[in-house]
């Protein structure tokens, strides 16, 4: 058992470094050919959109992993027991409301929620936080206010609908969720010798992990951005039901940062305010890059159940809130 696997593993590892080195040389040599491959305007546009999604998300991801690493390394587990009500049904809305405090976009909240679960916070509460933080934080609400001049009810509607969706999803998990769907982040190997050591190891690990999945989502979003015909949008804006579903799906596909999505939503002027609300509620909670990151951090079994359910709940809640506040 001890001898051969170790040797095999060593060879494999050596191979990885080698691949990196040889790959670098080949790529540098082949660079002119690579660039000419990207001469196609559609491919070039997709590459630009891809890089810009990653570049835009990167600082938020860095903030998110630093925060989650700090939670893991410096905040004692007992803190969460004191900060959150012991009753889980009550803990869900409290955690959801705590989302007001994390001024980041959705890329930051995925590692933070993972870290909260690893520190013993009830999954239902951590999930409510995961969904609400990117949607209702102050930066997002202010940008919504700026993007919809003269329509402050849009800010209220966004706050109410996002919070309600997050809390409802938390309670759903409490009632129907199964612990085995969640592949809880395995973190024992990230325990360093000092809290600072742990902090550093966790931050590096989480960045590499979540960043890799961000890349998958960014690639998918860039491809859709270029492949999607722009005309179909206009054709559905007249039908109230299709309009809501269409913009909700578009939010999933575009994967825009929650701090900018209000400006994009504002530009869909042929759509009803309710449809645009659905765009704003769905986008920060579930989009291609988030699905990919959630699958990476919480496991595939979780993501295939959580993502579609979130979508349905978010669309339903936005329609209700839109009917109540925006019509």
């Amino acid at each position, binding site marked *: 058992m001890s001898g051969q696997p170790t040797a095999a593993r060593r060879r494999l590892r050596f191979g990885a470094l080698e691949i990196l080195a040889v790959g670098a040389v080949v790529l540098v040599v082949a660079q002119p050919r690579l660039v000419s491959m990207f001469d196609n*305007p559609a491919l070039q*546009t997709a590459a*630009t959109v891809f*890089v810009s999604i990653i*570049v835009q998300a990167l600082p938020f991801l860095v903030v998110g992993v*630093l925060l989650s690493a700090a939670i893991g390394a410096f905040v004692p587990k007992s803190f969460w027991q004191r900060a959150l009500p012991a009753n889980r049904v009550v803990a869900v809305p409290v955690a959801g409301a705590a989302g007001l405090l994390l001024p980041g976009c959705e890329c930051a909240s995925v590692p933070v929620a993972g870290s909260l679960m690893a520190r013993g916070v009830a999954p239902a509460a951590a999930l409510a936080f995961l969904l609400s933080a990117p949607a209702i934080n102050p930066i997002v609400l202010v940008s919504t206010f700026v993007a919809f001049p003269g329509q402050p009810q849009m800010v209220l509607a966004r706050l109410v609908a996002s919070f309600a969706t997050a809390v409802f999803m938390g309670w759903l998990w409490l009632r129907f969720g199964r612990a085995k769907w969640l592949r809880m982040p395995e973190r024992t190997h990230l325990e360093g010798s000092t809290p600072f050591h742990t902090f550093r190891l966790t931050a590096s690990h989480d960045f590499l992990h979540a960043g890799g999945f961000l890349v998958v989502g960014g690639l998918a979003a860039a491809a859709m951005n270029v492949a999607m015909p*722009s005309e179909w949008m206009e054709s559905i804006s007249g039908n109230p039901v299709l309009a809501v579903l269409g913009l909700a799906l578009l939010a999933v596909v575009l994967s825009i940062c929650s701090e900018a999505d209000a400006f994009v939503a504002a*530009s869909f002027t042929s759509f009803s305010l309710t449809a645009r609300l659905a765009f704003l509620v769905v986008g920060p909670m579930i989009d291609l890059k988030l699905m990919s990151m959630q699958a990476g951090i919480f496991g595939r079994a979780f993501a295939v159940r959580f993502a579609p359910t979130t979508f349905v709940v978010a669309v339903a809640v936005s329609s209700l809130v839109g009917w109540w506040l925006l019509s």
Partner: protein
Amino acid sequence: MTREIQSIILLLVGIATLRISWGTTYLNYVKESMRPWLLVSGVILVVLGAWLLIDAMRARPASGASGAESGTPTEAADDGHAHSGPRAAWLLLIPVLTIFLVAPPALGAYSASRDTTNSIATDRSMAPLPPGDPVTLYLSDYVTRAVWDGGRTLVGRSVSLTGFVLAQPDGSWLLARMQLNCCAADAFASKVRPVNIPPDAGLLPEGTWVTLTGTWIPSEEVGTEETIPLVDVAGLVVIEEPTNPYD
């Protein structure tokens, strides 16, 4: 995935981030306000990567004379994780390579031709134009003033507009420029139709950057979100792509 490779990937992502935000390349992808955040993130990633590398190098002598990277209990545990864990980190090389090898350009004619909405309806009252003859305007500002304010603030003023040539099926061209809300994933286009262009300028290749000076002239169309306003060209200069290619 060994600590060494993790640290190299962290370093590469950090260096790529610094590389684009140190100069002006980042303006092809995001807004100017992102720059400090990108610089700080780049530094943090480089520091994390360098630290991890030092860790790995320190751990080496303790693991025996063979020079193998592993041996300490923590490293062994990390290895067990490698098959489910940050293997995804390899994917981070895709954007790094795209930035260094392909260097995707700013969005241009292809995106502009796909965007059919030209300006969003507004009932905001337009402030008078600032002084200047000609006065330099963003293309989007000109479009909004022309379409939603009936050109009221543009009457009698000479304006200077910068954008790129967007070829039309009928052989004419529009002056277009992209604008970002946040990043290139949410970009949209503004377009104006130049009239009375100098005859030789009719042959400008698509994507050429030009600065037009001219005056607003009314069109008979009723203003809609697709309306492309006109500008009567008095002067046309071909220029280099601006440092910030977006409006």
